[in-house]
Protein backbone atom coordinates (compact mmCIF):
# COMPACT_ATOMS: atom_id res chain seq x y z
CA UNK A 1 0.00 0.00 0.00
CA UNK A 2 1.41 3.37 -0.91
CA UNK A 3 1.61 6.19 1.60
CA UNK A 4 -1.16 8.06 -0.11
CA UNK A 5 -3.74 5.28 -0.03
CA UNK A 6 -2.76 4.49 3.56
CA UNK A 7 -3.51 8.08 4.46
CA UNK A 8 -6.84 7.89 2.63
CA UNK A 9 -7.77 4.72 4.49
CA UNK A 10 -6.85 6.43 7.75
CA UNK A 11 -9.17 9.30 6.93
CA UNK A 12 -11.98 6.91 6.04
CA UNK A 13 -11.61 5.24 9.44
CA UNK A 14 -11.75 8.60 11.17
CA UNK A 15 -14.90 9.55 9.29
CA UNK A 16 -16.84 6.55 10.54
CA UNK A 17 -15.12 5.96 13.91
CA UNK A 18 -17.53 8.01 16.01
CA UNK A 19 -20.62 6.52 14.40
CA UNK A 20 -19.20 3.04 14.98
CA UNK A 21 -18.56 3.76 18.67
CA UNK A 22 -22.09 5.07 19.19
CA UNK A 23 -23.54 2.00 17.47
CA UNK A 24 -21.42 -0.40 19.50
CA UNK A 25 -22.30 1.25 22.81
CA UNK A 26 -25.96 1.20 21.80
CA UNK A 27 -25.79 -2.48 20.85
CA UNK A 28 -23.99 -3.46 24.05
CA UNK A 29 -26.38 -1.54 26.28
CA UNK A 30 -29.37 -3.03 24.48
CA UNK A 31 -27.87 -6.51 24.72
CA UNK A 32 -27.36 -6.26 28.48
CA UNK A 33 -30.91 -5.07 28.92
CA UNK A 34 -29.97 -1.70 30.40
CA UNK A 35 -32.22 0.12 27.94
CA UNK A 36 -35.94 0.57 28.44
CA UNK A 37 -37.45 -0.70 25.17
CA UNK A 38 -40.03 2.10 25.12
CA UNK A 39 -37.51 4.91 25.62
CA UNK A 40 -34.73 3.54 23.48
CA UNK A 41 -35.36 0.47 21.32
CA UNK A 42 -32.50 -1.87 20.46
CA UNK A 43 -30.64 -1.33 17.17
CA UNK A 44 -31.95 -4.63 15.89
CA UNK A 45 -35.51 -3.48 16.51
CA UNK A 46 -34.83 -0.22 14.64
CA UNK A 47 -33.34 -2.22 11.78
CA UNK A 48 -36.40 -4.44 11.64
CA UNK A 49 -38.60 -1.37 11.53
CA UNK A 50 -36.55 0.10 8.69
CA UNK A 51 -36.98 -3.06 6.66
CA UNK A 52 -40.67 -3.17 7.45
CA UNK A 53 -41.25 0.51 6.60
CA UNK A 54 -39.34 0.20 3.37
CA UNK A 55 -41.06 -3.06 2.47
CA UNK A 56 -44.52 -1.64 3.04
CA UNK A 57 -43.63 1.49 1.09
CA UNK A 58 -44.63 3.70 4.02
CA UNK A 59 -41.20 5.25 4.41
CA UNK A 60 -40.81 5.91 0.70
CA UNK A 61 -44.29 7.46 0.33
CA UNK A 62 -43.81 9.77 3.27
CA UNK A 63 -40.30 10.67 2.19
CA UNK A 64 -41.39 11.63 -1.31
CA UNK A 65 -44.26 13.71 0.04
CA UNK A 66 -41.93 15.58 2.39
CA UNK A 67 -39.25 16.11 -0.24
CA UNK A 68 -41.78 17.46 -2.72
CA UNK A 69 -43.12 19.87 -0.11
CA UNK A 70 -39.64 21.08 0.73
CA UNK A 71 -38.74 21.52 -2.91
CA UNK A 72 -41.87 23.56 -3.57
CA UNK A 73 -41.24 25.91 -0.64
CA UNK A 74 -37.54 26.02 -1.39
CA UNK A 75 -38.09 26.82 -5.05
CA UNK A 76 -40.21 29.87 -4.20
CA UNK A 77 -37.65 30.90 -1.58
CA UNK A 78 -34.81 30.65 -4.11
CA UNK A 79 -36.59 32.71 -6.74
CA UNK A 80 -37.67 35.43 -4.32
CA UNK A 81 -34.61 35.28 -2.08
CA UNK A 82 -32.10 35.58 -4.89
CA UNK A 83 -33.92 38.29 -6.83
CA UNK A 84 -34.80 40.39 -3.79
CA UNK A 85 -31.32 39.86 -2.34
CA UNK A 86 -29.79 41.21 -5.53
CA UNK A 87 -32.23 44.11 -5.57
CA UNK A 88 -31.58 45.25 -2.00
CA UNK A 89 -27.86 44.64 -2.46
CA UNK A 90 -27.80 46.99 -5.43
CA UNK A 91 -30.26 49.65 -4.38
CA UNK A 92 -29.60 51.66 -1.24
CA UNK A 93 -33.25 52.75 -1.23
CA UNK A 94 -34.54 49.19 -1.36
CA UNK A 95 -32.06 48.30 1.38
CA UNK A 96 -33.17 51.08 3.72
CA UNK A 97 -36.82 50.30 3.04
CA UNK A 98 -36.51 46.60 3.83
CA UNK A 99 -33.74 46.19 6.37
CA UNK A 100 -35.77 46.74 9.53
CA UNK A 101 -38.67 44.53 8.54
CA UNK A 102 -36.26 41.75 7.54
CA UNK A 103 -34.39 41.99 10.82
CA UNK A 104 -37.62 41.76 12.81
CA UNK A 105 -39.31 38.95 10.87
CA UNK A 106 -36.20 36.83 10.43
CA UNK A 107 -35.79 35.73 14.08
CA UNK A 108 -39.40 34.49 14.33
CA UNK A 109 -39.13 30.69 14.11
CA UNK A 110 -41.45 29.10 11.51
CA UNK A 111 -43.15 27.14 14.27
CA UNK A 112 -44.45 30.40 15.76
CA UNK A 113 -46.17 31.10 12.47
CA UNK A 114 -48.28 27.95 12.59
CA UNK A 115 -51.43 29.44 14.17
CA UNK A 116 -51.51 32.23 11.62
CA UNK A 117 -50.67 29.90 8.77
CA UNK A 118 -53.65 27.67 9.64
CA UNK A 119 -55.93 30.70 9.66
CA UNK A 120 -54.55 32.05 6.42
CA UNK A 121 -54.06 28.93 4.37
CA UNK A 122 -56.25 26.38 6.10
CA UNK A 123 -54.86 22.90 6.60
CA UNK A 124 -54.01 22.18 2.99
CA UNK A 125 -50.68 21.92 1.18
CA UNK A 126 -50.05 25.62 0.71
CA UNK A 127 -49.64 26.34 4.41
CA UNK A 128 -46.89 23.74 4.73
CA UNK A 129 -45.15 25.01 1.65
CA UNK A 130 -45.36 28.52 3.07
CA UNK A 131 -43.69 27.46 6.32
CA UNK A 132 -40.83 25.83 4.45
CA UNK A 133 -40.56 28.93 2.31
CA UNK A 134 -40.23 31.05 5.46
CA UNK A 135 -37.54 28.74 6.78
CA UNK A 136 -35.36 29.07 3.68
CA UNK A 137 -36.20 32.50 2.35
CA UNK A 138 -34.43 34.70 4.88
CA UNK A 139 -31.27 32.63 4.87
CA UNK A 140 -31.05 32.94 1.11
CA UNK A 141 -31.99 36.61 1.08
CA UNK A 142 -29.41 37.61 3.66
CA UNK A 143 -26.53 35.71 2.12
CA UNK A 144 -27.26 36.98 -1.38
CA UNK A 145 -27.57 40.52 -0.06
CA UNK A 146 -24.23 40.23 1.76
CA UNK A 147 -22.52 38.83 -1.31
CA UNK A 148 -23.74 41.64 -3.55
CA UNK A 149 -22.83 44.29 -0.99
CA UNK A 150 -19.34 42.93 -0.47
CA UNK A 151 -18.48 43.31 -4.14
CA UNK A 152 -14.82 44.19 -4.27
CA UNK A 153 -14.28 47.91 -4.80
CA UNK A 154 -11.13 47.06 -6.76
CA UNK A 155 -13.05 45.15 -9.41
CA UNK A 156 -15.73 47.83 -9.53
CA UNK A 157 -13.04 50.40 -10.32
CA UNK A 158 -11.74 48.25 -13.16
CA UNK A 159 -15.23 47.95 -14.57
CA UNK A 160 -15.79 51.71 -14.24
CA UNK A 161 -12.55 52.54 -15.98
CA UNK A 162 -13.77 50.46 -18.95
CA UNK A 163 -17.14 52.21 -19.04
CA UNK A 164 -18.88 48.87 -18.72
CA UNK A 165 -22.62 49.08 -19.51
CA UNK A 166 -24.93 48.70 -16.51
CA UNK A 167 -26.36 45.24 -17.21
CA UNK A 168 -23.01 43.78 -18.09
CA UNK A 169 -21.61 45.28 -14.89
CA UNK A 170 -24.34 43.57 -12.85
CA UNK A 171 -24.45 40.20 -14.59
CA UNK A 172 -20.79 39.63 -15.37
CA UNK A 173 -19.17 41.35 -12.40
CA UNK A 174 -21.43 41.85 -9.38
CA UNK A 175 -23.39 38.58 -9.52
CA UNK A 176 -20.47 36.25 -10.36
CA UNK A 177 -18.48 37.95 -7.60
CA UNK A 178 -21.29 37.20 -5.18
CA UNK A 179 -21.63 33.58 -6.38
CA UNK A 180 -19.84 32.01 -3.39
CA UNK A 181 -22.17 33.83 -0.98
CA UNK A 182 -25.19 33.05 -3.16
CA UNK A 183 -24.33 29.35 -2.99
CA UNK A 184 -23.87 29.52 0.77
CA UNK A 185 -27.36 31.01 0.93
CA UNK A 186 -28.77 28.29 -1.31
CA UNK A 187 -27.22 25.58 0.85
CA UNK A 188 -28.24 27.04 4.22
CA UNK A 189 -31.67 27.77 2.74
CA UNK A 190 -32.18 24.18 1.66
CA UNK A 191 -31.08 22.70 4.95
CA UNK A 192 -33.19 25.12 6.99
CA UNK A 193 -36.17 24.46 4.72
CA UNK A 194 -35.69 20.74 5.20
CA UNK A 195 -35.49 21.22 8.97
CA UNK A 196 -38.84 22.99 8.82
CA UNK A 197 -40.52 19.96 7.30
CA UNK A 198 -41.44 18.51 10.68
CA UNK A 199 -42.82 21.85 11.85
CA UNK A 200 -44.73 22.20 8.59
CA UNK A 201 -46.21 18.73 8.85
CA UNK A 202 -47.43 19.43 12.36
CA UNK A 203 -50.12 21.48 10.68
CA UNK A 204 -52.86 18.84 10.64
CA UNK A 205 -51.01 16.65 8.25
CA UNK A 206 -51.71 13.03 7.53
CA UNK A 207 -48.67 12.45 5.40
CA UNK A 208 -44.95 13.12 5.32
CA UNK A 209 -41.97 12.26 7.50
CA UNK A 210 -42.99 14.83 10.13
CA UNK A 211 -46.43 13.28 10.36
CA UNK A 212 -44.90 9.80 10.51
CA UNK A 213 -42.82 10.82 13.51
CA UNK A 214 -45.59 12.63 15.37
CA UNK A 215 -48.04 9.81 14.71
CA UNK A 216 -45.57 7.19 15.93
CA UNK A 217 -45.03 9.20 19.11
CA UNK A 218 -48.72 8.89 19.97
CA UNK A 219 -48.52 5.13 19.71
CA UNK A 220 -45.26 4.93 21.62
CA UNK A 221 -43.43 3.59 18.56
CA UNK A 222 -40.02 4.97 19.41
CA UNK A 223 -38.43 2.83 16.72
CA UNK A 224 -40.47 4.53 14.00
CA UNK A 225 -39.60 7.91 15.51
CA UNK A 226 -35.90 7.07 15.28
CA UNK A 227 -36.22 5.80 11.71
CA UNK A 228 -38.01 9.03 10.75
CA UNK A 229 -35.37 11.19 12.42
CA UNK A 230 -32.49 9.36 10.79
CA UNK A 231 -34.18 9.58 7.40
CA UNK A 232 -34.50 13.34 7.78
CA UNK A 233 -30.85 13.56 8.78
CA UNK A 234 -29.53 11.41 5.94
CA UNK A 235 -31.64 13.09 3.27
CA UNK A 236 -30.55 16.50 4.57
CA UNK A 237 -26.93 15.48 4.32
CA UNK A 238 -27.45 14.15 0.78
CA UNK A 239 -29.17 17.34 -0.32
CA UNK A 240 -26.26 19.41 0.99
CA UNK A 241 -23.70 17.19 -0.73
CA UNK A 242 -25.63 17.52 -3.96
CA UNK A 243 -25.66 21.32 -3.75
CA UNK A 244 -21.95 21.34 -2.91
CA UNK A 245 -21.26 19.34 -6.03
CA UNK A 246 -23.31 21.78 -8.10
CA UNK A 247 -21.47 24.69 -6.49
CA UNK A 248 -18.11 23.16 -7.26
CA UNK A 249 -19.03 22.88 -10.90
CA UNK A 250 -20.66 26.28 -11.15
CA UNK A 251 -17.86 28.27 -9.58
CA UNK A 252 -14.84 26.22 -10.45
CA UNK A 253 -12.70 29.36 -10.54
CA UNK A 254 -13.01 29.45 -6.76
CA UNK A 255 -11.64 25.94 -6.21
CA UNK A 256 -8.03 25.04 -6.54
CA UNK A 257 -7.25 21.79 -8.26
Amino acid at each position, binding site marked *: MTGYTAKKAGYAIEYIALIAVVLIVWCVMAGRGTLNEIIMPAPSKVLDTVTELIGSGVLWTNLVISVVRVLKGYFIAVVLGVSLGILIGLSKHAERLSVLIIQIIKPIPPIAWIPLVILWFGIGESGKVFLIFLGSFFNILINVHDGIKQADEKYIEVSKSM*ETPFFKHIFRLIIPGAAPNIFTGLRIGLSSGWMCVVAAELVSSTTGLGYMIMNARQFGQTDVVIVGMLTIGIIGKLMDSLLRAVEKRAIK*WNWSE
Partner: protein
Amino acid sequence: MEHKYIEIKGLSKIFTRKKESVHALENIDFSVDRGELVCILGPSGCGKSTLLRAICGLDTEHSGDVFIDGRKVIKPEKTRGMVFQEHRLFPWLTVEENVAFALNGVDKDTKAELVQQHIDLVGLTGFEKSYPRQLSGGMAQRAGIARALVNDPELLLLDEPFGALDTFTKMAMQKELKQIRKKSNTTMIMVTHDIDEAVFLADRIIVMSPRPGSIVKVIDVDLAEPRDRNSYEFLEIRKEVFNEF
Protein backbone atom coordinates in the same frame (compact mmCIF):
# COMPACT_ATOMS: atom_id res chain seq x y z
CA MET B 1 -5.87 78.21 -27.56
CA GLU B 2 -2.79 76.05 -27.64
CA HIS B 3 -2.82 73.19 -25.26
CA LYS B 4 -0.68 70.20 -24.45
CA TYR B 5 -2.10 66.67 -24.67
CA ILE B 6 -2.36 66.29 -20.92
CA GLU B 7 -2.34 69.27 -18.61
CA ILE B 8 -2.48 69.07 -14.86
CA LYS B 9 -3.17 72.40 -13.27
CA GLY B 10 -2.86 73.24 -9.59
CA LEU B 11 -3.94 69.76 -8.44
CA SER B 12 -4.27 69.51 -4.65
CA LYS B 13 -5.87 66.86 -2.51
CA ILE B 14 -6.35 66.59 1.21
CA PHE B 15 -7.39 63.32 2.87
CA THR B 16 -9.13 63.63 6.20
CA ARG B 17 -8.72 60.67 8.46
CA LYS B 18 -10.02 60.78 12.04
CA LYS B 19 -9.93 64.58 12.15
CA GLU B 20 -6.34 64.48 10.97
CA SER B 21 -5.79 65.90 7.52
CA VAL B 22 -3.04 64.68 5.21
CA HIS B 23 -1.87 66.75 2.31
CA ALA B 24 -1.69 64.02 -0.33
CA LEU B 25 -1.04 66.35 -3.25
CA GLU B 26 -0.09 69.99 -3.22
CA ASN B 27 -0.27 72.19 -6.23
CA ILE B 28 0.82 69.72 -8.88
CA ASP B 29 1.46 71.24 -12.30
CA PHE B 30 2.80 69.43 -15.32
CA SER B 31 1.98 68.49 -18.85
CA VAL B 32 2.58 65.47 -21.05
CA ASP B 33 2.97 65.34 -24.81
CA ARG B 34 1.33 62.79 -27.07
CA GLY B 35 3.41 59.64 -27.36
CA GLU B 36 5.53 60.44 -24.34
CA LEU B 37 6.36 57.96 -21.59
CA VAL B 38 6.49 59.76 -18.27
CA CYS B 39 7.41 58.10 -14.98
CA ILE B 40 6.22 59.56 -11.73
CA LEU B 41 8.79 58.51 -9.19
CA GLY B 42 8.65 58.82 -5.45
CA PRO B 43 8.65 56.98 -2.12
CA SER B 44 5.43 55.37 -0.89
CA GLY B 45 2.95 57.83 0.50
CA CYS B 46 3.97 60.70 -1.76
CA GLY B 47 0.58 60.74 -3.42
CA LYS B 48 1.74 59.43 -6.79
CA SER B 49 -1.02 56.84 -7.01
CA THR B 50 -3.54 59.49 -6.01
CA LEU B 51 -2.25 61.61 -8.86
CA LEU B 52 -2.66 58.77 -11.34
CA ARG B 53 -6.19 58.07 -10.14
CA ALA B 54 -7.01 61.73 -10.69
CA ILE B 55 -5.71 61.54 -14.25
CA CYS B 56 -7.74 58.39 -14.85
CA GLY B 57 -10.87 60.03 -13.47
CA LEU B 58 -11.38 57.48 -10.68
CA ASP B 59 -10.88 60.23 -8.09
CA THR B 60 -12.48 63.55 -8.83
CA GLU B 61 -12.62 65.03 -5.35
CA HIS B 62 -9.70 67.39 -5.51
CA SER B 63 -9.01 71.00 -6.27
CA GLY B 64 -7.33 71.94 -9.51
CA ASP B 65 -8.01 70.25 -12.82
CA VAL B 66 -6.78 67.58 -15.18
CA PHE B 67 -7.29 68.28 -18.88
CA ILE B 68 -6.81 65.70 -21.59
CA ASP B 69 -6.94 67.02 -25.11
CA GLY B 70 -8.35 70.24 -23.69
CA ARG B 71 -11.25 68.43 -22.01
CA LYS B 72 -11.59 68.36 -18.26
CA VAL B 73 -11.46 64.86 -16.73
CA ILE B 74 -14.59 64.19 -14.71
CA LYS B 75 -14.94 60.41 -14.90
CA PRO B 76 -13.05 57.35 -16.17
CA GLU B 77 -13.21 56.74 -19.89
CA LYS B 78 -12.20 53.72 -21.92
CA THR B 79 -9.81 55.85 -23.96
CA ARG B 80 -7.64 55.74 -20.86
CA GLY B 81 -6.45 52.27 -19.97
CA MET B 82 -5.46 51.63 -16.37
CA VAL B 83 -3.14 48.93 -15.09
CA PHE B 84 -3.26 48.55 -11.35
CA GLN B 85 -0.67 47.51 -8.81
CA GLU B 86 -2.45 44.20 -8.37
CA HIS B 87 -3.57 42.56 -11.61
CA ARG B 88 -7.26 42.87 -10.69
CA LEU B 89 -8.31 40.19 -13.13
CA PHE B 90 -11.79 38.91 -12.42
CA PRO B 91 -11.20 35.47 -10.89
CA TRP B 92 -14.35 33.98 -12.45
CA LEU B 93 -13.26 34.76 -16.00
CA THR B 94 -10.52 33.13 -18.03
CA VAL B 95 -7.67 35.18 -19.46
CA GLU B 96 -9.44 35.69 -22.78
CA GLU B 97 -12.74 36.49 -21.09
CA ASN B 98 -11.00 39.01 -18.89
CA VAL B 99 -9.42 40.73 -21.85
CA ALA B 100 -12.71 40.60 -23.78
CA PHE B 101 -14.56 42.13 -20.84
CA ALA B 102 -13.04 45.51 -21.68
CA LEU B 103 -14.60 45.49 -25.13
CA ASN B 104 -18.13 46.78 -25.45
CA GLY B 105 -20.18 47.25 -28.57
CA VAL B 106 -17.78 45.29 -30.74
CA ASP B 107 -19.01 42.45 -32.93
CA LYS B 108 -18.05 38.90 -32.05
CA ASP B 109 -15.44 38.27 -34.73
CA THR B 110 -13.63 41.56 -34.24
CA LYS B 111 -13.71 40.93 -30.52
CA ALA B 112 -12.15 37.49 -30.81
CA GLU B 113 -9.51 38.85 -33.14
CA LEU B 114 -8.62 41.82 -30.92
CA VAL B 115 -8.48 39.64 -27.83
CA GLN B 116 -6.16 37.11 -29.48
CA GLN B 117 -3.99 39.86 -30.88
CA HIS B 118 -3.48 41.43 -27.45
CA ILE B 119 -2.94 38.12 -25.70
CA ASP B 120 -0.22 37.43 -28.26
CA LEU B 121 1.16 40.93 -27.77
CA VAL B 122 1.81 40.36 -24.06
CA GLY B 123 3.13 36.84 -24.69
CA LEU B 124 0.31 34.86 -23.12
CA THR B 125 -0.43 32.72 -26.17
CA GLY B 126 -1.56 29.31 -24.96
CA PHE B 127 -3.01 30.61 -21.71
CA GLU B 128 -6.26 31.94 -23.14
CA LYS B 129 -8.39 29.45 -21.22
CA SER B 130 -6.55 29.72 -17.90
CA TYR B 131 -8.14 31.23 -14.84
CA PRO B 132 -6.23 33.98 -13.00
CA ARG B 133 -5.41 31.74 -10.03
CA GLN B 134 -3.57 29.41 -12.40
CA LEU B 135 -1.21 32.18 -13.54
CA SER B 136 2.01 33.41 -11.97
CA GLY B 137 2.22 37.02 -10.81
CA GLY B 138 4.01 38.15 -13.96
CA MET B 139 1.59 36.37 -16.27
CA ALA B 140 -1.40 37.81 -14.47
CA GLN B 141 0.05 41.29 -14.76
CA ARG B 142 0.57 40.74 -18.49
CA ALA B 143 -3.07 39.77 -18.82
CA GLY B 144 -3.94 42.99 -16.97
CA ILE B 145 -1.89 44.96 -19.47
CA ALA B 146 -3.57 43.20 -22.39
CA ARG B 147 -6.94 44.09 -20.92
CA ALA B 148 -5.94 47.74 -20.59
CA LEU B 149 -4.62 47.82 -24.15
CA VAL B 150 -7.39 45.98 -25.95
CA ASN B 151 -9.52 49.13 -26.24
CA ASP B 152 -6.60 50.76 -28.02
CA PRO B 153 -6.42 53.57 -25.46
CA GLU B 154 -4.76 56.87 -26.29
CA LEU B 155 -3.30 56.89 -22.84
CA LEU B 156 -2.11 54.03 -20.69
CA LEU B 157 -1.87 54.65 -16.96
CA LEU B 158 0.27 52.24 -15.00
CA ASP B 159 0.24 52.18 -11.21
CA GLU B 160 3.39 50.34 -10.09
CA PRO B 161 2.44 47.47 -12.36
CA PHE B 162 5.64 45.51 -11.79
CA GLY B 163 6.03 46.34 -8.10
CA ALA B 164 5.21 42.85 -6.88
CA LEU B 165 7.37 40.96 -9.39
CA ASP B 166 10.84 39.52 -8.91
CA THR B 167 13.77 41.34 -10.50
CA PHE B 168 14.10 39.10 -13.55
CA THR B 169 10.43 39.03 -14.42
CA LYS B 170 10.34 42.74 -13.84
CA MET B 171 13.17 43.46 -16.29
CA ALA B 172 11.55 41.24 -18.90
CA MET B 173 8.25 43.04 -18.43
CA GLN B 174 9.90 46.44 -18.77
CA LYS B 175 11.40 45.37 -22.06
CA GLU B 176 8.05 44.13 -23.21
CA LEU B 177 6.39 47.39 -22.27
CA LYS B 178 8.89 49.16 -24.48
CA GLN B 179 8.06 46.80 -27.34
CA ILE B 180 4.36 47.44 -26.86
CA ARG B 181 4.97 51.16 -26.90
CA LYS B 182 6.97 50.87 -30.09
CA LYS B 183 4.12 49.04 -31.78
CA SER B 184 1.21 51.09 -30.48
CA ASN B 185 2.78 54.49 -29.80
CA THR B 186 0.47 54.91 -26.81
CA THR B 187 1.15 57.74 -24.39
CA MET B 188 2.03 56.25 -21.04
CA ILE B 189 2.21 57.57 -17.51
CA MET B 190 3.69 55.17 -15.03
CA VAL B 191 3.93 55.47 -11.29
CA THR B 192 6.87 53.72 -9.70
CA HIS B 193 9.19 53.76 -6.71
CA ASP B 194 11.96 52.01 -8.62
CA ILE B 195 14.67 54.39 -9.88
CA ASP B 196 16.14 51.90 -12.37
CA GLU B 197 12.74 51.23 -13.81
CA ALA B 198 12.09 54.93 -14.29
CA VAL B 199 15.48 55.58 -15.93
CA PHE B 200 15.11 52.54 -18.16
CA LEU B 201 11.61 53.38 -19.37
CA ALA B 202 10.94 57.09 -19.18
CA ASP B 203 11.37 59.97 -21.58
CA ARG B 204 10.88 62.15 -18.58
CA ILE B 205 10.91 61.47 -14.85
CA ILE B 206 8.82 63.50 -12.45
CA VAL B 207 10.27 63.17 -8.98
CA MET B 208 7.85 63.61 -6.10
CA SER B 209 8.32 64.05 -2.36
CA PRO B 210 5.84 63.13 0.35
CA ARG B 211 3.80 65.18 2.86
CA PRO B 212 2.79 67.27 1.12
CA GLY B 213 2.98 65.37 -2.15
CA SER B 214 4.63 67.73 -4.57
CA ILE B 215 6.96 67.73 -7.55
CA VAL B 216 10.59 68.27 -6.60
CA LYS B 217 12.21 67.89 -9.94
CA VAL B 218 11.57 66.96 -13.56
CA ILE B 219 14.42 65.09 -15.23
CA ASP B 220 14.65 64.51 -18.98
CA VAL B 221 16.06 61.14 -19.87
CA ASP B 222 17.91 61.52 -23.16
CA LEU B 223 19.24 58.05 -23.64
CA ALA B 224 19.66 56.19 -26.88
CA GLU B 225 17.60 53.04 -27.44
CA PRO B 226 18.05 50.29 -26.57
CA ARG B 227 19.05 51.46 -23.15
CA ASP B 228 21.87 49.71 -21.40
CA ARG B 229 21.34 49.55 -17.67
CA ASN B 230 25.09 49.49 -17.09
CA SER B 231 26.19 52.22 -19.45
CA TYR B 232 27.90 55.31 -18.10
CA GLU B 233 25.11 57.64 -19.26
CA PHE B 234 22.46 55.44 -17.67
CA LEU B 235 24.26 55.45 -14.37
CA GLU B 236 24.81 59.21 -14.54
CA ILE B 237 21.08 59.84 -14.83
CA ARG B 238 20.43 57.24 -12.18
CA LYS B 239 22.76 59.15 -9.87
CA GLU B 240 21.06 62.44 -10.67
CA VAL B 241 17.69 60.93 -9.77
CA PHE B 242 19.06 59.19 -6.72
CA ASN B 243 20.42 62.46 -5.33
CA GLU B 244 16.89 63.78 -5.11
CA PHE B 245 16.10 61.37 -2.28
